[in-house]
């Protein structure tokens, strides 16, 4: 499958995240056959819970457009998003709004996946082709490895009423 090698690049990002104590999710954006953005979660480093791998890449694409004199609304529709874990509701909504070409992900996200938990296309009234299951086990193993240790910045769970 043509996305295998891009997924491996996303895994490089995910492992880098794991090594610095971030949730190991990695992502690359592919434009005209080339990776133009790569990133991993930076939530703990920035104290901003929206700094998921996809958002790191979105910022890089905007930079890419500025440097290359391109319009982002022309570039995003040609971008394939390759990400190790199913984009969350926030990221999926953003990628739908940006009208990316397609999203290819590894393992599903049962807690807040933008496909598994909420029907994002129905809410945002636009559909992007989304395909999961590429290297799903590898992606899941990385997450498991992370959650064996504890997220150092995780909030303290409130006891249920």
């Amino acid at each position, binding site marked *: 499958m043509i996305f295998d090698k891009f997924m491996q690049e996303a895994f490089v990002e995910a492992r880098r995240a794991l090594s610095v104590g971030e949730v190991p999710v990695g992502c690359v954006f592919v434009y005209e056959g080339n990776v133009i953005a790569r990133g991993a979660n*930076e939530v703990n*480093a*920035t*104290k*901003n*819970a*929206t*700094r998921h791998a996809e*958002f790191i890449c*979105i*910022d890089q694409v*905007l930079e890419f457009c500025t440097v290359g004199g391109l319009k*982002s*609304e022309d570039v995003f529709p040609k971008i394939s998003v390759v990400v190790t874990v199913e984009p*969350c*509701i*926030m*990221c999926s*909504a*953003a990628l739908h*709004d*940006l009208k990316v070409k397609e999203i290819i992900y590894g393992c599903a996200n*049962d*807690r*807040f996946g933008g496909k598994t*938990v*909420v029907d*994002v296309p129905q*809410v*945002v*009234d636009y559909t992007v082709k989304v395909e999961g299951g590429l290297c799903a086990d590898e992606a899941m193993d990385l997450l498991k490895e992370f959650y064996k240790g*504890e997220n150092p*910045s995780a*909030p*303290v*769970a*409130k*006891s249920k009423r």
Partner: protein
Amino acid sequence: MEPPQKKPKIQNMSTIQAILSHEYTEPNKLMEVYVTAVDDKKQISKIMQQLATLLPVPQLQHLKRVKDNKIILCSKEDVGSLEKLKPFLEAKALDTAIIEEILQKTEIVEVPATPPKLRWQYDIVHRIWPCKFHPDKYMEQRYEGTNFTDKEKEFHWNIATLMMDISRKILDNQGIGVCVDPRFNSLVAMSSSFTTKSPVMHCPMILVDYVARTQDSGAWNEKLNSAEDFMESEKDSEHTLAGIPKRFKQFMDEHEDHKNIKLGAERLRNTEKLKSEDVQMLDGDNLAKYGPYLCTGYDVYLLQEPCLMCSMALVHSRAKRVFFIKFSDNGSLATRFQLHSVPELNHHYEVYHIKCDNIDMS
């Protein structure tokens, strides 16, 4: 003589309405069940004994099994048509004599399919079938709109007025967001949108990044420092103004209505975190105990109902409550969706719509 003209009352015209899920705002759905009618009291207890062990109905635990002389047997969906009821009961290994007794007088009735959450629902469903009910005083108050004190309402209204004023006078009617620490009624951060810089720089996305600035961090500092000047706080001050753009502070200083609103966020604490085992034992407000972490314990006020991306950003950020004034076509807390009512999410904030009837909403 003409009656004295009534002085127009200058009063707070706003109401603050909780946006609650359908579980609270809709009547309970009904479902069909098979019941049997048994007139002999002794028989009823005999049948009940068998049903309790051999034919429990876990999905109807909110209902009493017996109403007068009628006993719920099972949901119609589990059985199908009436002729299938006998083989169904036999398969559950009920006594033959009991089955005979049951089948003498069976009928299909509708009963509430879900437990009532609020008193008004209970009043309806318990007339249909006897029902268990655990009143939740806080949810009743939120439904009735009586959960805020007058003083709290006044504060929410002040923030709403501030947002509408700033939007109209210096933001060309664009959206604005304010993050508040409700422990001190103090403004932690304020933001407008910057969609000319980036299509994802909606005002709530920027707001959570400005909150991160108050925690000595943030992701868009470089990108936005050229667009926005920030307040500097005295080094030894307990609170930081790092999330407050100068232009908003200036506006507030210049306007009598707004200049008494408190500004500043608690700084990060240097205390080490408790071990997770200790922490499990504790209850109450994490913000008070551990200091700032993302938007934990903070309230977020928005002029415009947030889109799905921003609504989820506020879930990730662990906001406590979200208030908004204007509905949005792509709004995801009321208009197109109620993200805060999705049970799978690991955090749920409360959502309120501040209705301003006396304001031109165009």
